[in-house]
């Protein structure tokens, strides 16, 4: 996949992630229950669990910051932008994996929004890693 296409893919996925995180942040501060397809209360339970915050910061806010930074990294020219994007997406992926583990084995509930975010972060981790490794020679230098 070309650099241009990879950038576009990363941009689109990060935008979708930004929208998901923005919704979850709104729901968190408005103290509403997230809309969960099929009901079940999984989202509410996850949102109300001790895993919903990290050092007092809602995970949804961290997601918002993370997706925003990944999006922003697309505008950093050259290799530093690609490295920053990859590190950020890999951190997001690692944290999503941890939260998915917590949902399955600690909270005993699955939040569909978190699953969507985990999938988006996985795509971003793969795309940014591929972009870092496969950048065209002249672009890699600059």
């Amino acid at each position, binding site marked *: 996949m070309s650099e241009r296409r990879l950038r576009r893919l990363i941009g689109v996925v990060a935008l979708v992630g930004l929208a998901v995180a923005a919704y979850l942040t709104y729901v968190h501060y408005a*103290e509403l*229950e997230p809309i969960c397809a099929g*009901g*079940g*209360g*999984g989202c*509410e*339970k996850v949102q*109300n*669990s*001790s*895993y*919903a*915050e*990290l*050092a*007092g910061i809602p995970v949804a806010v961290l997601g918002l910051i993370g997706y925003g930074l990944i999006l922003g990294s697309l505008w950093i020219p050259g*290799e530093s932008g690609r*490295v920053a994007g*990859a*590190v950020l997406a*890999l*951190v997001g*992926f*690692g*944290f999503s994996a*941890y939260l998915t583990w917590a949902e399955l084995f600690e909270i*005993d*509930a699955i939040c569909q929004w978190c699953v969507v975010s985990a999938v988006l972060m996985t795509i971003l981790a793969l795309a940014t*890693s591929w972009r*870092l*490794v496969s*950048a065209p*020679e002249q672009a*890699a230098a600059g």
Partner: protein
Amino acid sequence: MSTERNRRLLLLGGAILAAVVVVVVAIVISQGGSDDDGGGGGGPTASGGGAQQSQSAEVEELFGGIPQQGVTLGEPDAPATLIEFADLQCPFCAQYTTGALPTVIQDYVRTSRLKMQLRLLRFIGPDSERGAEVAAAATLQDRGWQFSDLFFRNQGQENSGYATDAFLEQLARETPGLDVNQLESDLNSPAAERLIRQAERQANQLGVSGTPTFFIQQGNGAPEQLELSSLDADSVTAAIDSALGEQ
């Protein structure tokens, strides 16, 4: 070309390593303070005795095997929800809990016709507040129903200051399946406070002015208040049947 590729692979390896370090540090931070769930020990279990033991066993029997997620008791897919607004100090709430609730659980919740939500308010006084705070922390472990049931069974004189730390700790220790160390670290946590505020906001939205007040919500429809002629099991089940259109 191949050295360039190797350099980039090395960069990717560095990025993965950096990400692992950041995630591990974040996880350690997130777990700091709530890492104490080994061991059963802890403070004195004020003699307790046979009566408490049997209460605990009764509560276990009442709720045992029923799915519980936060404030919700029952099958998540149940077609309707019975929402109860209660105050732990309210004597009528205790009357309903010890009288009609077992029948409601047996006839409606265990048969997956209803799931139930317990929303605790704290308007009677400080004992309600302390009780609701512990109940909210217990709810984070899906044991709010059990803790509240035990509270109602041991309800004292309204606003007499009976809900002391020792009283609440004793109830927590008697609550089946509750990790007391975890409860203590969850007490007054943002997640627990959120549960209390959610209950109060929902009560305001639905115009709840006293307790116990019940609503039936069919699917995702608007909750409709359940009109009860009395709090005994027959009246409650008749009202539920009527609301469910099963009269």
